[in-house]
């Protein structure tokens, strides 16, 4: 292997010899406390009867993303999509398995997270930029671009608590897209804002994909998914149910939604018409996953 720089060594700079993302056997467990004991009194009184269930938000998930791939993650609510994104963004560490990201990662999980209402738009641009990992000079360089994208020039020196929610999100987005990472993780942020904002943000992301960067999108908007991504992962109750071309994944997901909506017996719920090679490995998951659907008596 060629000598790597310190920044490549620590995963902060892209190393083209390694894939962009390697997820290997990752399990993430959440402990659901039935009555959570957080204080001293509860701890003392409930010492012996703390009841909880462990719930695997993700179990044994493995996949690899190469540089320049654009990958969508789709699945029902609670299927583990957002948890997966948080793991990739390093907000959560994996409980089991390993995750390797190679290059600078930026995540758009919530726009405007970390804004402080009492500070002005100008001050928040610097604060939020720093939270996203930008240096002062980098923000100086991009300042005008951010202000133009967000369209907040007249309100630059007004406290952001007086901004409308649309403006707030627009400013958050404008800052986030200037980060220019190697790997961009986006979670459903397109759902907010008006139509103009949505088309503009889609355009920015398309530009990002066209520039050959690695892109991971979590979305329920299947049209956007189909348009933006080449490949899709379907998550089902924390398991990877499908990994392949986006058209097949969307088709599969649509069928699952349709079959979940109609009450059936568990046996009849196995989706038909999807590629058998992708189903052979995940068949047990498929049958397990329908337990939430209403059963015939």
């Amino acid at each position: 292997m060629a000598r790597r720089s310190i920044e490549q060594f620590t995963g902060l700079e892209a190393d083209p010899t390694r894939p962009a993302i390697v997820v290997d056997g990752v399990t993430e467990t959440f402990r659901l406390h039935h009555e959570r004991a957080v204080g001293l009194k509860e701890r003392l009184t409930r010492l012996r009867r703390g009841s909880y269930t462990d719930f695997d938000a993700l179990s044994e998930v493995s996949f690899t993303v190469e540089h320049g791939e654009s990958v969508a993650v789709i699945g029902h609510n609670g299927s583990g999509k957002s948890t997966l994104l948080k793991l990739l963004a390093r907000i959560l560490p994996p409980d089991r398995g390993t995750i390797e990201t190679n290059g600078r990662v930026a995540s758009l999980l919530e726009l405007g997270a970390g804004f402080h209402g009492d500070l002005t738009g100008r001050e928040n641009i610097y604060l939020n930029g720093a939270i996203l990992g930008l240096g002062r000079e980098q923000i100086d360089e991009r300042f005008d671009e951010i202000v133009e994208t967000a369209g907040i020039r007249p309100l630059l020196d007004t406290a952001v608590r007086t901004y409308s929610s649309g403006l707030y999100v627009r400013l958050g987005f404008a800052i986030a897209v200037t980060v220019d990472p190697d790997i961009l993780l986006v979670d459903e942020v397109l759902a907010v804002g008006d139509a103009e904002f949505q088309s503009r943000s889609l355009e920015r992301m398309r530009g990002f994909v066209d520039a050959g960067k690695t892109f991971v999108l979590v979305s329920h908007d299947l049209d956007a998914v189909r348009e933006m991504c080449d490949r899709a992962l379907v998550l089902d109750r924390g398991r990877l149910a499908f990994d392949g071309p986006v058209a097949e994944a969307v088709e599969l997901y649509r069928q699952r939604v349709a079959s979940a909506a109609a009450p059936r017996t568990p046996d009849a719920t196995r989706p038909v018409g999807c590629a058998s090679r992708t189903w052979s490995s995940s068949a047990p998951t498929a049958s397990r996953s329908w337990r939430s659907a209403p059963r015939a008596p």
Partner: protein
Amino acid sequence: MSADAGAAGSADGAVRAGRRTRAGLGKLLELWRARELLDQLVRKELKVRYKSSALGFLWSMLTPALMTVVFAIVFTQVVPIPIDDFAAFFIAGYLLWQFFQNSCQGAIHSIVGNGDLVKKVYFPREVLPLSHVISQLIHLLLALVVISPFLVWTRGVGVLLHLPATLLAIALLTVFTAGVAMWFAATNVVFRDLQELFIVIFQVWFYATPVLYPLALVRDQLGDDSLLATALQLNPMAWFVEVFRSPMYGSVVNAAGDGIVSGGPTVPSLPALGIALLSAVVVFIAGYAAFLRRSGSFAKEI
């Protein structure tokens, strides 16, 4: 973080050691890269605090000033403590204490209070408690500038001549405070009662630190080997106050036969300096380690 978790046999140990080195290196590099964020958070802290008040920073001088007046009346008129310039003696110790307490108080809420941020964005979490320590440090330095004319007037120019010793004492206390603050911030995430206990802990800790009284007085009244004098010396804050007060006020010693004697500003004694240095390093490493061990699960626990 590496994908070769399955590496077996003799290579396993080397791989693990390599990974640990890489993780440590990455952690330090990451904190260095986050300096801009730390700077912005400190600015935010200072701006938000004084944004809409006309007197601004002077408000933070109000508490120590009032405390000094009240305690000076009580301990010179009502229950006299045999010490020169009680007001100067008290405020030199109290500013230091206030820095410590306010830093910890800000830090204890820093993770829990920023739940949205911690759950949605990745950044080295230690910048949250550290930003409180640094903004309080700026307060302390400003406060010292404000009270220095008073100290020079009462204790002589020696206060200014010993400035390097004062700055050294502040540097050591900052390292110590950073360790304690990170411990409080991380522990409060899993044990929320800590923020309720905080006031009680710091009340007791305040009286257990020789801010109001000189340590020499305890030794004089109860003897060098008394239980109380020994117990007080186990409190690291006692040593920081001693080290800080020597150049700011002067040494207070137990002269044989003469009782308590207050000297002019001087360099801190080497043993006191050594104890302060040692506790700063040990507490910082322990606090940072405890913080890092827990920081992974912050996003789950909040």
